[in-house]
């Protein structure tokens, strides 16, 4: 298990005031006691606005940066003290086109990145062959990376992140700026890595649909603090917004229908009647709908229920409400 506990990070920022004036130093708290846990085979989403602290947290978990306070253990190894041991268990994949040598081809890139880890030569060769195949890059090995498309570069980035066969992968916006179909491919690779190869994955993304599709658990971070953590379902259940139900009905006579509702003191101002098809639709708080037995009253008023559908809140609703 990868476990980061009570991670705090404070940056010292120099505000330059001019050549002959003293610099002003100020401190920025980028992370304020953040906790994060990832199990093997699990994808954990880290969601938040730009500047919320996602990338700083990824850099600390990947031991590229030291926290001001807190602890980090990766499969029982102290990531802050024995980080050279712990580093072989993780790798980081970022979105965009950096982190690759553009003048080299894919195999040359992977050979170099493999040499940064203690991997026996024959194992490294087999691993490169495997990665080139599963990421469908083997057909393009004559091309230098500078001639790759965005999607190919991103696939190579993921292959690079897997070169040391890490147990935990940290992905920072891996589908940023990619076409829809390529982003879908990347998501499929990630599912495969978690499900089949049992990699523990931390995913930061701005695309909430992506998090909803991939992550079992998510943490929502804002201003250096985790606002909420848990499964997407549990976060949705904490929404203060009242669940709504949409109803679609047909009716015989609008006047008789409204007359009955009026006699029962039922408000009709949120009923949307369509002119020609004799159908109407409306939206009610789900709780209220069932407590007042409103559907039964509609039927009594002469309506036939065509469709009842409760509105499912998306992760976006959760994030928007928490960040509001």
């Amino acid at each position: 298990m990868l476990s980061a506990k009570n991670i705090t990070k404070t940056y010292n920022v120099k505000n330059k005031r001019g050549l002959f004036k003293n610099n002003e130093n100020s401190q920025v708290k980028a992370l304020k006691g953040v906790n994060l846990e990832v199990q093997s085979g699990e994808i954990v989403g880290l969601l938040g606005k730009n500047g919320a602290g996602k990338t700083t947290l990824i850099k600390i978990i990947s031991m590229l940066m030291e926290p001001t306070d807190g602890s980090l253990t990766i499969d029982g190894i102290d990531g802050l003290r024995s980080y050279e041991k712990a580093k072989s268990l993780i790798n980081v994949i970022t979105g965009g086109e950096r982190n690759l040598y553009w003048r080299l081809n894919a195999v040359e890139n992977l050979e170099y990145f493999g040499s940064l880890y203690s991997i026996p030569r024959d194992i490294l060769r087999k691993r490169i062959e495997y990665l080139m195949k599963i990421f469908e890059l083997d057909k393009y090995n004559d091309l230098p990376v500078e001639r790759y498309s965005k999607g190919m570069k991103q696939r190579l980035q993921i292959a690079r992140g897997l070169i040391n066969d890490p147990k935990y992968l940290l992905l920072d916006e891996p589908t940023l700026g990619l076409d829809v179909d390529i982003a879908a491919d990347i998501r499929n690779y990630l599912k495969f890595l978690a499900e089949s190869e049992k990699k523990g994955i931390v995913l930061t993304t701005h695309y909430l649909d992506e998090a909803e599709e991939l992550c079992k658990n998510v943490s929502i971070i804002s201003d250096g603090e985790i606002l909420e953590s848990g499964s997407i379902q549990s976060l949705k259940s904490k929404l203060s917004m009242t669940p709504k139900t949409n109803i679609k009905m047909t009716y015989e006579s609008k006047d008789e229908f409204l007359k009955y509702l009026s006699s029962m003191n039922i408000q009709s101002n949120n009923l949307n009647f369509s002119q020609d098809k004799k159908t109407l639709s409306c939206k009610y708080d789900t709780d209220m709908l069932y407590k007042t037995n409103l559907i039964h009253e509609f039927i009594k008023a002469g309506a036939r229920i065509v469709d009842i559908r409760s509105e499912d809140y998306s992760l976006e609703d959760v994030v928007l409400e928490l960040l509001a």
Partner: protein
Amino acid sequence: MLDMIIGTYKRKRKELKNATPLTYILGRVIRGLFTILVSHFMYENVFNQTVSDSFIENSGSLDYMTFVVIGSAVHVLGVSTMMSVGRGLISELRMGTLEPLLLSPKNKIAYFLGLMVEQVQRSTVEFIIVLLFGVLFGAKLSFLLSIKSILALSLIIISFFSMSVLVAAMMIYTRDTYVTQNTLFIFMYFICGISFPISYLPLSLQAISSVFPMTHSINLVRYLASGTLLYSNWVTSISFIVILSTLYFMLGYGWYRRYEKKILENNLS
């Protein structure tokens, strides 16, 4: 460690092969050649092939062209090694490839060594070109074809490597290449006795020049060339080279290690 040295060497070699390496060496070779040409024209036409007694005394009785060619060639060797290894980390930062390197659990000395091994190949070519050109203008360099000279040059390359680790730490810390390469290397060109004996400099500058391994490296090669290699001179030069190299390496690598986990902070803070 060996994997990383070989890996870095191969990667750099392939990158340069795909990016017309001639442009990388041409500038430094031309600079070395121009130093020789300017010195030749001044020696032939301004000084009429005469040098002062003080020059003869301070140069170990070397003729002027041999003196300048040795200075120029060692300067080319030093600057190219320091430039390549020194710029290594900051180039990775600018290309966006520093992160995967920092993620590696391996000791980064292997990375610097890989860059050095690759650079030594190119530096040697540059060094030889400058020497051959020097021979055309009358420099007497046959002394270089000896085991003693090869050992001395190997030590000199190691000293340049050590200084380049400090240069690398300095460049990544200041996020600047221009001040270091344009100011430091030009300052070294003036102060390390490339085209005139350092005894012509004011005492304060002479003291500063003695902290650069390049000064002692050039002296060592000139002692070898003069054939009047006194034991005391030889020991002094080698001692300075070894002590300064150790100091620069420890200082540079220590600085890098302390700063390693802060390198990426500047991008985020």
